[in-house]
């Protein structure tokens, strides 16, 4: 019980409550000094009655508020409060009866009676409303009014019987009506339906105790006439009647509903289990985790003694126990084997066991229940459980089916989520690969005074097979390499990174483009798949002699634009990685004089083989037209890129690389 309750402070702050408290204080003082002392001297019966009524009201006001703090919402605990308060009352009665203290005895009993009555009433009031769905307050209030009115009239009539001779009948009538209303009120004990079996058994004993204690109290009060106040005696009688009848009915009702307690308990647990399910889907990402939670939750179902989930693979007839609750691994394995040796059905089914070997804790297992949860191709996920329950009715099957359907949805969601995560992961990895590959290409075009250079590179997928690079050996010599791995995407990009290594090293060692290409072929032939190849062009500018040395290994020709005329250089040469022998025989190094304002154009076949919707190729003619349209290489490049985008309508099928270089010996390029 939470005795220190913030609610206490709340009610102390209530002005009405504080006023009641003060009134109560003065009323007690008044009763103490005025009524008690002078009652015998002056025959103050009427003031005494009035003060009793006022006191009762004030006590009720105060204690029903305070009672709310102590009394919990649990009916069992509330019944306990009734028991305690009556035991307390009994001890007060005994104390005052047999103790030597005679001063204030009457007063103590009066106050104790009022406190006990108010608390009893408060608790009965709460029990009356417990688990009631409709508003039935009017009956209780009616009972309350009749109880008071009858008691007051009864008190008055006994004191002034000579004045009101014909009151007897009216009082009898009022008493009967009050008892009837009390009887009606005692039938409100719906809350016992919601108790667990254990609580019900407990309640049986509790009701007996309450009836006995209340009976004793009532008997003592009547026999020894301990309370001076007629009013309180009357109220006390009614309340005791209420209590005894109420707990008698509860006792009987509990006794009769005890056999059905198990079923109610089970339904309650099922409901809670189903509520737990709603949390399943949002919590897990892995199938294993979901199934583990499923098993955990299911163990609260159908008085399950043990349950476990297996994954059964039909292809190799092998099963795996994914997780288990309340069962040993050995037994689960034995029983699983029994399940998979029988035919697996689609919906819930059970298998009767007649063999002795299946037993746990000296208990023979008569039946195993199988709930197939999920099937993915030839993989079955089966929930197997053993239970005290051997028979399953329509309702159970509906619950099991709902359970199964729900699990299926959850698993589907998990699978979808995992697919999405996997896709995202691949996307991330490709992005990483692209980042790495972008580092393969020169991040900055080297500053070479005699050459103006612009480049464009765009892979068809995240990563590509095109590669270009610039090598500056000294102030007078500058080399450019461009290459294209057949194929595209990830496979090609792996080769691309090797190509970078090969050309970087070879350009350091050799000066001759021809030698570099021949060596490159030897290396590449060993690392590349039989059905793929690499085309490459290697150019070295010798600015001292104004000479270009050019080697082409199966790559597209080199375009030179000189005075708005196109010169196409296509020395003989075979792609890299095709031939292991005699490659050098087919490679030719071309020497070419270069002039001021010569523009050199290198492309990969992503340009010439760009396709439009009708599968037509962009070709060289269109390209050549653009090449002679301007002498500004940035302008030319932009035009090519724009045209390609327009032509292929954004549908790029191959990696595109374009390099334009413009020669100006003065080192002044614009």
């Amino acid at each position: 019980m939470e005795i220190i309750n913030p609610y206490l402070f709340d009610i102390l702050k209530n002005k009405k409550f504080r006023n009641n408290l003060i009134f109560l204080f003065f009323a007690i003082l008044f009763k103490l000094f005025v009524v008690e002392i002078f009652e015998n001297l002056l025959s103050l019966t009427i003031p005494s009655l009035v003060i009793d009524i006022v006191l009762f009201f004030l006590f009720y006001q105060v204690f029903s508020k305070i009672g709310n703090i102590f009394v919990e919402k649990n009916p069992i605990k509330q019944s306990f409060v009734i028991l305690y308060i009556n035991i307390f009352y009994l001890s007060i009665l005994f104390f005052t009866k047999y103790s030597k203290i005679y001063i204030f005895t009457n007063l103590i009993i009066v106050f104790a009676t009022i406190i006990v009555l108010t608390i009893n009433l408060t608790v009965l009031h709460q029990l009356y409303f417990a688990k009631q769905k409709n508003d039935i307050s009017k009956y209780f209030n009616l009972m309350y009014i009749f109880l008071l009115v009858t008691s007051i009239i009864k008190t008055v009539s006994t004191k002034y019987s000579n004045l009101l001779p014909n009151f007897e009948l009216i009082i009898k009538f009022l008493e009967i009506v009050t008892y009837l209303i009390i009887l009606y009120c005692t039938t409100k004990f719906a809350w016992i339906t919601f108790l667990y079996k254990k609580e019900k058994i407990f309640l049986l004993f509790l009701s007996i105790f309450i009836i006995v204690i209340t009976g004793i109290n009532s008997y003592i009060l009547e026999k020894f006439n301990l309370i001076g106040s007629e009013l309180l005696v009357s109220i006390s009688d009614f309340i005791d009647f209420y209590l005894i009848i109420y707990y008698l009915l509860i006792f009987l009702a509990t006794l009769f509903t005890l056999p059905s307690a198990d079923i109610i308990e089970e339904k309650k647990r099922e409901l809670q289990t189903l509520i737990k399910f709603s949390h399943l889907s949002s919590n897990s990402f892995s199938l294993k985790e979901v199934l583990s939670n499923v098993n955990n939750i299911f163990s609260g179902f159908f008085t399950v003694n043990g349950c476990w989930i297996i994954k059964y693979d039909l292809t190799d007839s092998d099963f795996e126990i994914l997780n288990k609750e309340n069962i040993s691994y050995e037994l689960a394995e034995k029983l699983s084997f029994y399940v998979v040796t029988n035919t697996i059905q689609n919906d819930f089914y059970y298998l009767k066991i007649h063999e002795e070997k299946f037993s746990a804790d000296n208990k023979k297992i008569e039946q195993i229940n199988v709930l197939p949860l999920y099937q993915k191709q030839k993989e079955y996920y089966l929930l197997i459980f053993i239970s005290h329950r051997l028979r399953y009715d329509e309702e159970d099957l509906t619950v099991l089916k709902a359970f199964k359907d729900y699990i299926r949805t959850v698993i589907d969601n998990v699978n979808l989520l995992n697919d999405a995560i996997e896709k995202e992961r691949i996307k991330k990895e490709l992005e990483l690969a692209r980042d790495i590959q972008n580092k393969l290409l020169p991040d900055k075009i080297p500053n070479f005074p005699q050459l103006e250079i612009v480049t464009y590179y765009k892979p068809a997928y995240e990563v590509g097979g095109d590669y270009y690079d610039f090598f500056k050996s000294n102030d007078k010599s500058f080399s450019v390499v461009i290459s294209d791995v057949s194929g595209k995407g990830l496979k090609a990009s792996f080769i691309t990174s090797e190509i970078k290594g090969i050309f970087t090293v070879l350009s350091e060692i050799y000066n001759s483009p021809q030698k570099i290409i021949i060596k490159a072929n030897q290396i590449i032939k060993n690392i590349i798949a039989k059905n793929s190849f690499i085309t490459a062009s290697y150019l070295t500018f010798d600015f001292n002699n104004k000479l270009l040395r050019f080697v082409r290994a199966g790559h597209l020709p080199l375009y030179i634009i000189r005075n708005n005329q196109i010169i196409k250089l296509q020395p003989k040469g075979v792609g890299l990685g095709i031939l292991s022998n005699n490659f050098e025989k087919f490679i030719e190094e071309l020497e070419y004089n270069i002039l001021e304002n010569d523009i050199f154009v290198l492309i990969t076949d992503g340009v010439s083989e760009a396709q439009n919707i009708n599968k037509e190729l962009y070709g060289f003619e269109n390209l050549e037209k653009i090449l002679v349209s301007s002498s500004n290489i940035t302008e030319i490049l932009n035009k090519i890129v724009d045209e390609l985008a327009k032509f292929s309508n954004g549908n790029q099928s191959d990696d595109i690389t374009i390099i334009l270089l413009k020669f100006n010996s003065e080192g002044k390029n614009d």
Partner: protein
Amino acid sequence: MTDFKINIDNYSNEIVIIKLEGYLDAHTAPELENQIANLVENDIVKIIIDFEKLNYISSAGLGVFMAYIEDIREKGGDIKFTNVPDKIYEVFDILGFPMIYEIYKDSKEAINNFNEISNDQR
């Protein structure tokens, strides 16, 4: 793929003519590669490829002919090209194919060439 067709003409026990039609690219190349692999496995290594009806060849398509050329030549066979359209010849030329493969006007010439070689060997 509907835009690519392979017609195999078993000219003789030894010589096979493969007629290509449509688009030979990364999607359709494996189909052709499988066909050639089959032939090589069955020791049919005198292969003539007819390009007459081929519209387009990509680098992946070109790769098919390189994949088995060394095996085929080791077994005494060869891949010979016939009826190569100008556009495709241009591609071959850039890559250096004319230096690696024999290219004939039509299949008759290619067959004659195969037969001449066999006669010489006898």
